[in-house]
């Protein structure tokens, strides 16, 4: 683990930014979630790439989201303890 500690550190710091960026893409995430949830209804069938379009929208929003500032809604999570080093 110590040999690739630097790589691991970078991966973890990228992961830490995920929740904030996801929060900035609430609408796309909700659309994707609804699409997947609809397939769990009786008669639905979940297959690969069933919701690919919604997921692409989510991904592009996610990639564009800046991990810096905090939105108002999540102000009480602005400096979560686990994000500070």
């Amino acid at each position: 683990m110590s040999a690739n500690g630097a790589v691991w550190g970078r991966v973890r710091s990228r992961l830490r930014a995920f929740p904030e960026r996801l929060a900035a893409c609430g609408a796309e995430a909700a659309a994707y979630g609804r699409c997947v949830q609809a397939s769990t209804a009786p008669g639905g069938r979940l297959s690969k790439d069933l919701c690919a379009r919604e997921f692409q929208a989510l991904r592009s929003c996610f990639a564009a989201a800046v991990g810096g500032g905090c939105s108002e809604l999540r102000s009480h999570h602005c400096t979560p303890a686990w994000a500070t080093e």
Partner: protein
Amino acid sequence: MLRSAGLWHFCRRLGAARVPAENLGRREVTSGVSPRGGSSSRALNIFDRDLKRKQKNWAAQQPEPTKFDYLKEEVGSRIADRVYDIPRDFPLALDLGCGRGYIAQYLNKETIGKFFQADIAENALKNSLETEIPTVSVLVDEEFLPFRENTFDLVVSSLSLHWVNDLPRALEQIHYILKPDGVFIGAMFGGDTLYELRCSLQLAETEREGGFSPHVSPFTAVSDLGHLLGRAGFNTLTVDTDEIQVNYPGMFELMEDLQGMGESNCSWNRKALLHRNTMLAAAAVYREMYRNEDGSVPATYQIYYMIGWKYHESQARPARRGSATVSFGELGKINMPEEEKSQ
């Protein structure tokens, strides 16, 4: 508070001298439990115990260990309640998989004379919490208990048996080391634990990758628990279940907390890599399917508490068939005054 000066390290092969000669050829395990029903021949190897030790060591030496302790503290206090409910004191007790000693901090020295804290991770034993009971810290794997028969009055175990490979054997070993009229009080995670996480990952992986692999470890069902305890030889079983729901801002925070608790997945069949896309998809699905009104997402922890006793003549037994002196028909008359009963 008295503590022993150092840790006792018990090598896995320590008990070899005590195993009867005819058993040596049959199995490689080394404690003195005689095989019952050939459970060792069907021993499963689901979890990588070495990795679990490393994960627990990592979790225990984090800069703020108390941040992730909330669940174990809560369950530890509930187990201590159950210990207090028994109107007895226990001169010698063992805490199996103690972590930082979450149960010992709630008990007092009138109830427990001496407490053995046993865990697989030495960092957890080194950072243990304050308690007034004299303790001895022992580095022990829950599957290979190095203690002699009829040693302990009380064995407690809080949230560590769900990582044991051969649970029937572990329970048999606990039964073995208990004194007659000794009691085992345990808590383990049950079938519905983290079902939201499991379902979200499953759905997201199916949609993104076309198939899914298990990411949440398999848990015991409550009916199996009763059978396991009975098979291990325990009497007067009590199993009850409790659900604790913890709200998190999102799925990533939940996974971070699970890692901080030392509860990361260590099964052999785990997938080495979870794609970022899949994680993102799972977080979106989790939020959409399970979120609360205030935007947080819940995670359910279902805890099974079990109490089992080792047999002793003084314990109550079921009455012999045909020895009844009143019939069920008279149940309705129990609270009536005497003159009405005779009518």
